[in-house]
C-alpha cells in the first residue's frame, strides 16, 4: 500500500507538472483558494443560518454569500469524519473504524481499526499540494500522532495542530492519568509547550492567519487551508465576555429552546413543513417541570456552549476580514460544517469513572466543580447534558456516536469561489457526505481519485448547475459506529441500534416524510427493508471493512451505570481502551519550542 501511495504521488507530480506547463489556464489563472472550517461536536441547528438563537454572524454571512445544505452527512465520531474528509473513503477502510478510545477486543489489531488515518492513504493535503497549492492546517488533527502521521508527513506545508481528540482549550491538560498531556505539532515539530496566551480558537486562528500572511508575502500561491476548530467540543472552556454572554438565556430549558429552534428552522426553510420534532429521550425530563434553579444550573452548559460557538465565530471573522482586505475572499471557496452530532454521552464521566486512576487524575486536575461560576474555567470540565444535545441536533433524534440523523447529519455552508453559478443564500437538499469533499477537490484540480473504492460523489456539477444533483435516488450510503448502523438510499433509511437505543433489529424510516425517525415502517415495507439490509450487510460492510464490535461503548447505557467489567473480558483486553490510554513520547530530535505568533 505504501508503494501504491508513492506511485500515486510520482504520477501526480508528473501530471501536475504537465498541467502547469501544458495548460495556460492553469498556469496563468490563479486557482481558487480553498478554506475548510470545521466545528467540533457542533449540532445541526447550532448556527443562526440553521435556526439557532446562538449568535454566529460570520458564519451566517458566509451562508448568505453562499449556499446552505440541509442534507449533508458526516460520520458519527470525529476521527472517522476527519479520516473520511482527508481520504475521501469510508473510515473503516482508512484506519478509523472507530476511535482508539472505543476499539472493541475483536477489532483490536485489525487493519482499519488502528484509530488513525493509515499512512498509505493520500490525504487532502497531498492532493492539493500536488495541484500546486500551498497547504495549511491549524486546529484539531486527530488523525495520528506518530511522525509519519502528523500533518507535515501528510501533505501540509504549515501546521499548528493538536494531535489528540479532545482536552483543555487552555493548556495541554488531558483526562488520563497515564496520558496527561495533549500533544501538538507546529511545522513538523512536536511542541515542548504551548505558545503564550494559548486558547484554542484564538491561537488556531492566529496561526492560520500567520500562514496566510506568510504565503502572501512569499509565493502568493493559492492555498488550501483546513481550520479545524476544537470548539465547541467539551470541556466547555471559554473566556469572558463570551463566558457570561448568554447568562440566563437558557433558563427557559431545553424543551422550550428546542421548540423555538424547530419553529425557526421551518421558518427559514431549513426543514420541510412536514417535519416533526424528534421524540425527547426517555431519560430526559421536560424542562418545564424542572425547578428554576435546576434549569439555571443545567442551562449553564448551553450558555457556555453558545459562548464557545460565538467566540469561534468571532475568531473566524478575523480570517474572513483578512481575506476581504487582501482581495482573496471572492476567490476563496469556503466550506463550514460540524464533524459529527453534538456530544451527549457523558464521555468525560466515563473516562474518569469513579475509583479509577483517571478519577484521581480528575480530582487533581479537573475538580473545579460545585459552583456554576466555575464552569467554563480552566480546571472545570463541563459537557452537554443529553437534553441540550437534543437541542443542538434539532429536529433530529440522536447525537454523537449514533447513526441516527442527529449523530450524522450536520449543517454545511459552502461559499463557492467566483465563477460558480449559484444563487447566494439559497438552501439545497442534495444528499451529500463529507467524503465527497475529497472527490470534489480532486475533480476541481483535474486529478484522479487516488484512494481506491469510495462511495463519494463530486459536487462540482451541482455547484456549477443548480439543476444538477449530487446523488441519484439509487445511490446509497452506509454508517457504523459502536454497532450503531444505518444505511440510506434515496429517502429510505434503515437503522439498527443496541439496547436501549434500539432492540438490535433493523428499522425502516422514510425520510421524505419522517426526518426525525419517529415511525418505523418496516412492517409496511418488508421488501425495502430486506433489500437495504442486504446492501448493508453484503455490500457496505464488505466493501468498507466494517467489523462489528463484540463490546461497545454504549453497552452500559441502559442501566446508566458504570462501564461493564464483569463478563466477556479477558485479562489484557484493556477494554474500554479509553480507560487505559498511555502517553506517547515523540522523538527528542523532533521536539521544538512553539513560535510566538499573536495576530490582532
Amino acid at each position, binding site marked *: 500500500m505504501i508503494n501504491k501511495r508513492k506511485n500515486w504521488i510520482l504520477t501526480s507530480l508528473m501530471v501536475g507538472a504537465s498541467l502547469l506547463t501544458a495548460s495556460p489556464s492553469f498556469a496563468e489563472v490563479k486557482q481558487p483558494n480553498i478554506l475548510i472550517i470545521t466545528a467540533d461536536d457542533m449540532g445541526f441547528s447550532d448556527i443562526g443560518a440553521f435556526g439557532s438563537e446562538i449568535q454566529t454572524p460570520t458564519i451566517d454571512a458566509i451562508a448568505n454569500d453562499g449556499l446552505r445544505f440541509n442534507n449533508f452527512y458526516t460520520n458519527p465520531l470525529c476521527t472517522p469524519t476527519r479520516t473520511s474528509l482527508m481520504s475521501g473513503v469510508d473510515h473503516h477502510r482508512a484506519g478509523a473504524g472507530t476511535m482508539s478510545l472505543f476499539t472493541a477486543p475483536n477489532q483490536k489489531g485489525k487493519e482499519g481499526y488502528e484509530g488513525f488515518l493509515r499512512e498509505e492513504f493520500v490525504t487532502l493535503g497531498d492532493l492539493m499540494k500536488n495541484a500546486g497549492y500551498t497547504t495549511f492546517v491549524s486546529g484539531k488533527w486527530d488523525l495520528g500522532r506518530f511522525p509519519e502521521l502528523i500533518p507535515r508527513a501528510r501533505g501540509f506545508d504549515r501546521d499548528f495542530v493538536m494531535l489528540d481528540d479532545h482536552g483543555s482549550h487552555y493548556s495541554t491538560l488531558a483526562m488520563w492519568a497515564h496520558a496527561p498531556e495533549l500533544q501538538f505539532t507546529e511545522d513538523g515539530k512536536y511542541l515542548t509547550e504551548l505558545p503564550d496566551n494559548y486558547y484554542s480558537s484564538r491561537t488556531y486562528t492566529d496561526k492560520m492567519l500567520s500562514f496566510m500572511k506568510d504565503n502572501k508575502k512569499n509565493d502568493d500561491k493559492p492555498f488550501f487551508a483546513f481550520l479545524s476548530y476544537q470548539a465547541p467540543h467539551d470541556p466547555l472552556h471559554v473566556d469572558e465576555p463570551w463566558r457570561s454572554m448568554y447568562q440566563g438565556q437558557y*433558563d427557559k430549558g431545553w424543551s422550550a429552546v428546542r421548540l423555538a429552534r424547530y419553529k425557526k428552522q421551518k421558518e427559514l426553510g431549513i426543514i420541510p413543513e412536514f417535519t416533526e420534532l424528534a421524540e425527547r429521550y426517555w431519560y430526559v425530563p421536560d424542562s418545564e417541570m424542572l425547578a428554576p434553579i435546576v434549569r*439555571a444550573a443545567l442551562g449553564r452548559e448551553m450558555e457556555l456552549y453558545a459562548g464557545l460557538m460565538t467566540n469561534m465565530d468571532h475568531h473566524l471573522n478575523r480570517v474572513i476580514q483578512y481575506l476581504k482586505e487582501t482581495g482573496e475572499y471572492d476567490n476563496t471557496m469556503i466550506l463550514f460544517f460540524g464533524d459529527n452530532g453534538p456530544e451527549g454521552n457523558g464521555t468525560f464521566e466515563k473516562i474518569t469513572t469513579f475509583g479509577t486512576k483517571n478519577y484521581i487524575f480528575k480530582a487533581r486536575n479537573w475538580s473545579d466543580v460545585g459552583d456554576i461560576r466555575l464552569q467554563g*474555567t480552566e480546571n472545570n470540565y463541563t459537557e452537554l447534558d443529553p437534553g441540550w444535545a437534543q437541542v443542538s441536533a434539532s429536529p433530529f433524534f440522536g447525537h454523537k456516536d449514533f447513526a441516527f440523523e442527529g449523530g450524522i447529519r450536520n449543517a454545511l455552508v459552502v461559499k463557492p469561489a467566483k465563477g460558480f453559478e449559484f444563487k447566494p443564500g439559497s438552501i439545497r437538499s442534495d444528499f451529500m457526505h463529507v467524503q465527497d469533499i475529497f472527490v470534489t477537490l480532486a475533480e476541481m484540480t483535474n486529478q484522479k481519485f487516488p484512494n481506491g473504492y469510495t462511495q463519494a460523489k463530486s459536487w462540482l456539477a451541482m455547484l456549477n448547475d443548480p439543476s444538477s444533483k449530487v446523488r441519484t435516488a439509487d445511490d446509497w450510503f452506509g454508517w457504523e459506529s459502536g454497532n450503531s448502523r444505518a444505511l440510506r438510499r434515496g429517502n429510505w433509511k434503515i437503522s439498527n441500534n443496541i439496547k436501549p437505543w434500539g432492540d438490535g433489529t433493523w428499522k425502516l424510516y422514510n425520510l421524505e416524510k419522517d426526518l426525525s425517525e419517529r415511525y418505523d415502517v418496516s412492517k409496511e415495507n418488508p421488501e425495502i427493508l430486506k433489500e437495504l439490509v442486504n446492501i448493508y450487510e453484503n455490500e457496505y460492510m464488505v466493501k468498507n471493512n466494517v467489523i462489528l464490535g463484540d463490546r461497545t461503548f454504549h453497552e452500559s447505557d441502559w442501566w446508566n451505570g458504570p462501564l461493564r467489567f464483569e463478563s466477556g473480558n479477558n485479562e489484557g483486553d484493556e477494554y474500554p481502551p479509553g480507560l487505559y490510554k498511555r502517553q506517547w513520547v515523540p522523538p527528542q530530535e523532533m521536539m521544538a519550542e512553539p513560535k510566538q505568533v499573536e495576530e490582532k
Partner: protein
Amino acid sequence: MKGFNMKTPPLKSMMKYLIGTGLIVSTSASAITLPPRFYERTLLGVEAIPILGISFNGNINPFDPTLGDNSNSHIPQTGIDDIHLEGTMALAGYSISFPIQDRSARIAYLQPIGNMNVTATGQVTSGRSTISNVPIQYYSTNGVGDPFFEFTIGLFGTPAMDELPKAIRYQPGFQMDLLLDLSVPIGEYDSSQAINMGTNRFWGRVGFPMMLQLGDVWAPSKRASLEILPAVTWYGDNDDMYVGGTQSTDLGYSLGAHLTYDLSQHVWISLDYSYVKSGDYENSGGANDGSFDGQDFSSVGFTVATDLTRNLNASLGYQTTINDDGPGKAQMSTFSFNLTYYWADILDGLSRTGFKF
C-alpha cells in the same frame, strides 16, 4: 450515558455557596472597621447569628475613640503619663437580608457585652527615687454595651437576589451600597465611673461600602476583591460625663480597605487597613472643659477565614495601629474571632429532603 441527574457536579454542591461567606460580623464599633467580605450580597431571606469575640489592648477605647486621646481628657490628669486599656468583648446579634424594590437590603442588630479595664500610669516619687510608669489608677467595667443597628441597601451592582438562580450566579463585579448605622445609648452607663460599656449618647454612621471583584470568576477558590468603605460618623452629645458636664463631638471620618484572596476552596485571607479620624470634641460644664482634637490613627492587619460547615463560618483577625510611637499617639491592637451561623428556609428544606451540599 449521561442522564439527567441531580447529582451532576453543577447541582451537587452549589447550594453551599448560595449564601456566600460574607456574613462575618461587623465589630460594630466606630473605631474598628467592618471585616472583609462583609458586604458580599446574599440570597434574600438569609438569616444569620454572628458572634464576635474581641480582645483589645491599647490606649484608646475601641468603642468610643473620642475617649482616650492623647490628652487623656476623660481621666483626671493628676500625675498621669499614660493610660492603658484592655478588654474582652463579645458582640452577638442577628441579621436578615430582604428586598427593597429590586435592591438588596440587609438589617443587622448587634449587642456588645464584655468587660474593659483601664490602668493609668504615672510617676511615683519615693524618697530620692522617682519611678515611672507605675499604675496609679485602675478602673474596670463589665456588662452590656450600646446595641447597634445597621442597614445597608445596594446602590450599584447586583440587584436583589430574590431567586436561587440569581444567587448561584452572583458575581460582585463592582458594587456599592449605602450604609446607615445607629448606636442607641441603652447600654450600661454610670457617670460616676471612668469607663463604661455604654457611651451615653447616640452615634451613627453613613458610609458607602464598595466592592470590586478582581479577576473574572467569583467562586470558591477563585475569589479576590478590593473593598473600600469610606464613612462619616456622627456623634450625639454625652450630657452626663464622668467628670460632669457635656461632651459635644464633631463629625468623624473613617476609611476601611481590604484586599481579599481565596487561598483555597474553603480558606481565604485578607489584608486589612483602616483609617479613623474621630471628631474633635468639646467638653463643657464639667471639671475638664475645653476643646480637644479627635483621634487620628491608621491600623493594618489581616484576617483568615474559613467555612466550618455548610452553615457556619469562622474568621480570625488581627489589627494594630501603625506610626503610633510618638507621644500621645493612639495605640490599639485587636484580636478578633468570629463565628457566624446562617440559614435560609429553602436551603434547610433542601438539606432535609436529602439534597447533599
